[in-house]
């Protein structure tokens, strides 16, 4: 197995006036070269923080990050600058993630300028041109400003910028959630094509399970800073064992006449402040018993390649 990214017990805490916020709390996973890991959860579950911590846009509180065999848990600014050549990010909001005062070509070419990739101007221009072609932006877009383009095209700019310096690994933070359905499909297809052509490895963060299903090899489900279930993507939609995953899946409205049996959760998502020792999902869990409020469940392998964190995994699923 050829792993590109290995994350071990990664933690990211924030100090807030109300206490310590456990945004990411002991998350571990391995990601193989050329594969896609889908990270799914609702707002406030720490999925974006996880992505940003892996990229060192935020510094981890503790834990280990191994990238391509190197330990990058702690890096100095110079190492970080070099590291950025290899790991990039595509952001959620195509309207705020690109500078409104730069032209399309300027935005896409910026990483090339920062890393002084080309000496000759013509090489630089050729690369920008090539990138635009790769992501499907017409030539005449080069001198346009972002506001002149629609959301889908703007997201293509963001993708081209991330690809500019040939990274190995890209974190996609909800890259399609701000787009219309038909445009969503275009961007998802583009990302999948790029992966095939360039051998990219993705970490794909989203709140939408139906989106990750198509693009991911493995899926992690997060709840309040912790992984609650992890397994191959295909498996998750057939056998899901954690009560939260079940509820999340059943909550997606299906464009079909016959709807799934819905599991309605009580209450709302809180924030992981002063969490203490309990299952973080216990308050909303339909199966919660006393122990769930006393002990944090550990991630355990329930069937080969499928881990979940629940005290009653076996009982609930009749295994």
């Amino acid at each position: 197995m050829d792993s590109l990214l290995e994350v071990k017990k990664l933690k990211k805490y924030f100090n807030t006036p109300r206490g310590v916020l456990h945004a990411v709390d002991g998350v571990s996973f391995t990601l193989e070269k050329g594969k896609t890991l889908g990270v799914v959860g609702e707002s406030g579950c720490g999925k974006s923080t996880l992505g940003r911590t892996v990229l060192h846009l935020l510094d981890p509180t503790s834990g280990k990050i191994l990238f391509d065999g190197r330990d990058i848990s702690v890096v100095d600014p110079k190492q970080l600058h070099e590291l950025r050549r290899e790991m990039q990010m595509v952001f959620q909001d195509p309207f705020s993630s690109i500078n409104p005062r730069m032209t399309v070509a300027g935005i896409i070419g910026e990483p090339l300028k920062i890393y002084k990739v080309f000496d000759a101007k013509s090489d630089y221009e050729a690369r920008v041109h090539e990138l635009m072609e790769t992501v499907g932006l017409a030539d005449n877009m080069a001198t346009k400003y972002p506001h002149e383009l629609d959301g889908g095209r703007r997201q293509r700019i963001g993708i081209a910028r991330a690809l500019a310096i040939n990274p190995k690994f890209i974190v996609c933070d909800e890259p399609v959630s701000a787009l219309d359905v038909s445009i969503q499909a275009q961007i998802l297809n583009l990302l999948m094509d790029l992966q095939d052509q360039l051998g990219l490895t993705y970490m794909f963060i989203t709140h939408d399970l139906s989106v990750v299903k198509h693009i991911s090899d493995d899926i992690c489900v997060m709840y309040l800073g912790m992984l609650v279930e992890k397994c191959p993507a295909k498996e998750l939609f057939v056998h899901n064992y954690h009560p939260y995953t079940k509820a999340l899946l059943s909550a997606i409205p299906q464009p079909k006449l016959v709807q799934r049996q819905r599991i309605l959760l009580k209450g709302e998502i809180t924030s992981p402040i002063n969490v203490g020792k309990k299952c973080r999902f216990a308050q909303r869990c339909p199966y919660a018993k006393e122990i769930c409020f006393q002990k944090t469940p550990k991630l355990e392998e329930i069937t080969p390649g499928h881990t979940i964190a629940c005290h009653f995994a076996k009982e609930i699923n009749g295994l």
Partner: protein
Amino acid sequence: MSEILLEVKDLVIHYFTDGEEACAVNGLSFDLAPQEVIGFVGETGAGKTTTALGIMGLVPNPPGRVLNGEIIFQGKDLLKASEAEMRKIRGEKITMIFQDPMTSLNPVLTVGDQIAEVVLLHNKMSKKQAMARAMEMLEMVGIPGARCSEYPHQFSGGMKQRVVIAIALACNPELLIADEPTTALDVTIQAQVLDLMRKLKEDLKTSLIMITHDLGVVAEICDKVAVIYAGEVVESGTLKDIFTDHRHPYTEGLFASIPDLDEDVDRLHVIKGLMPSPTDLPTGCKFHPRCPYATERCASERPKPVHLSDTHMVLCPRAGDGGAQKA
């Protein structure tokens, strides 16, 4: 259908800015019976929200202007009603809830006051009675009445949207227009709010126009559907018509581009091209530049509605001449 609550006929609303004319709504028609729920489905810029604002008489003027059409509500053309009459209708007979629950509540008033305000505006009753009504409404949307005296910031997103729904329903309106009411919410919270709306629709016998881009939400709650593209209804019918027998190429594309949870496909289906700009709509059928079946006729001739049954209308000639009999 015997009785009709709302009938919109050939509605045309354009926006005029900087010498440009944006054709937001172009001859849109539909009708709605009492207690019925219709879903408006379409992408950003299709004219769904403008239509809703048109019904409410709230199209910002300038730049917007209603150029043509009739909006007949309980036998009366709202486009001919005076502003004073409209003000009475809004809030009492027709109410609207918006996408973002965070910004539609006033942060310096308690939620109780905000519900009571609407009640007092449209009913003759004492402040005390209005507050009692406010508490009743909160209970109805699943919030303890005692939280009446709390401020919006003390509520979470889903709770705020419940409060907004309570305000909209406080005067027992005949018609509720909900503009993407669950889009800003998390999936599990969205499920709760949809569940609530479904219950309320049964209890209160209010008609509902549900504006959404999500066909899943439509399937959850609507009786019939109008698929809107470039300011026109391109296909309409009962839930069953649309979900099992959609004929318009755009509807087809919409369904195909949604990733299916139960099936495996390698590539997602894509509707090629982009939504046309409302300032520069194509001639003929507005969908023809993106349509896989387009013929020369589509580019020049405006398609006429094809009625496949009493309920099912398709704005595409293919639907009539059997072209839609795909594999």
